[in-house]
């Protein structure tokens, strides 16, 4: 149950670059107006990667709502489109399939690491409501939102 809720909410972090100076590229600055911040849907690839990071499994069967490219870019589409009723249905079905795959005995055994010598139970981590909290790659991330939306 908790796993299901977690999957449905594959959650997500809003990332904002830390307040460090951004190196200025040479040449004249392109005339681009910064758009207002907006929620972004996870793209299909991002969802699949998140599931892989979270559970170590791949979504094997069934479709997900296709991404929409706007101005040729999926990430722009992710910032402007919504999820259709069929899309909601597909994500729900995917969550159930993933839960079954994750709880499958073969997968549990394969993904359990062998204990290292001298290993003992670490202290219980502070519970967080999503598996996310800290980003990677030098970008500080802050959990903002859930349910396949990020800011």
């Amino acid at each position, binding site marked *: 149950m908790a796993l299901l809720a977690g999957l449905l909410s594959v959650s997500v972090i809003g990332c904002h670059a830390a307040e460090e100076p951004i190196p200025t590229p040479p040449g004249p600055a392109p005339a681009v107006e910064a758009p207002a911040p907006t929620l972004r849907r996870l793209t299909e690839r991002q969802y699949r990667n998140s599931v892989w990071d979270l559970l170590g499994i791949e979504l094997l069967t069934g479709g997900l709502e296709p991404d929409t490219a706007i101005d040729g870019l999926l990430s722009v589409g992710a910032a402007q489109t919504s999820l*259709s*009723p069929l899309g909601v249905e597909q994500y729900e079905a995917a969550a159930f399939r993933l839960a079954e795959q994750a709880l499958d005995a073969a997968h549990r055994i394969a993904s359990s690491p062998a204990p290292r010598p001298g290993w003992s139970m670490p202290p219980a981590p502070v519970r967080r409501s999503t598996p996310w909290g800290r980003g990677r790659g030098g970008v500080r991330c802050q959990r903002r939102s859930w349910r396949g939306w990020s800011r």
Partner: protein
Amino acid sequence: MAVEVQGRGVNRRTVLRGLLRGAVISVGLPPLEMFFNSNGSAYACGGAIPKRFGLFYWGNGNRPERWVPEGEGTAWELSEELAPLVNVQPKISVISGMAIHFPNLYPHTSGAAALLSGMELMGSGENITFAGPSIDQIIAGSIGVNSLYRSIQTSPTGASGLSYNGANARNPPEASPWALFERLFGPAFQLPGEGGAVDPRLALRQSVLDAVLADLNRLRAQVGRADQLRLDQHMEGVRELEQRLALLQQDPPALDACALPAAPLQSYPDIDGRPQVSAISRAQCDLLVMAMACDQTRVFGHYFSDPVSDVLYADATAGHHDLTHNELDPQPEVHEITVGIVSELAWLLERMDAVQEGDGTLLDNSAVLATSEVSLGHIHAIDDLPIVLAGSACGRLQTGVHYRSYTSENVSKVMLTLVRAMDISAASFGAAEGEVSDGVSMVEA
């Protein structure tokens, strides 16, 4: 556009639920008068038998000189391109001469948006979308809310489809007949009167969705207006799924024609590099027809092909869109492709007409709109659009007529006629150049 639902009325499911809840009834259920027509002979459409709406859409238009029928009013003959509809001719009306009144800034896409939403295409370049809901969703918002699926979209050519809940909120069609079968007639499907055990997982699924909705609501409070609208569309989908889970825990409606259809093939591989469009379309249409006979949905969109579709059809020497621009006049291949598409429309309509409901057929109880975003594809013409209406929407549409407009009337008039035929009281349809407040009176009954 002003749309208001005219009382949802009482359907048989509501009555049964109300009468049987918590009580043991030992007498037979008396037939209710409202379920009979004026002859008292059968269940009346709009009561126990729901009204349905369907859209059959194809891209790239037709050859108008071989499409428009000879003769008008009730005295007309099927043209070459409409000939495949011979078996259902008394149950269709043809409307010709209608036009789109918006500028055709983006050939094909401007026309599609104006045609189906009555609004101008929004955005520019590659960032374009319908500005508001398409006709199928306007209608689904009223007649689709009591069935398992508000609407179902299919495409035999993998089209993106043209069903919009609003700007940037497209309902993508299902391309695989097998996936559609699993979705509609998979393990959760129950035949009327089958009365199997209720799937215990339904309650679990409902509680998960409750949690999702609660979270979306929390998120909604933190974002701007534009994002709220997008989240509202997302939540609409979640609520629809919740409602479906609730309906799945009740007995299905008692519709005689409902039966478990044969499963389609798992895949339809290309033959000589050409997709099996006809076989896929027929498999999808058969499932759509049974989904309506079982009242799983009351609204469908079959997107045979997208605007600018370049599908390589059987026997064609090039893709469809390519041919519309590069084949020499009079374009015999474009003509043949159009006839082939109308043949698939005929398959759908004949299947609908084979389903008996009360003293009519499923087709009689429906309105199906078949249309395209252009007429002569070569010049992207947005006048004299191809339009076929099929079914009488329970007697609200006049069938068996050809109406020809000589003044290039606004095509939104056809949409307004259809919206009203679905018992939705609408003062107007469309916006700006697309706005009309009158329908096409010749096809209104």
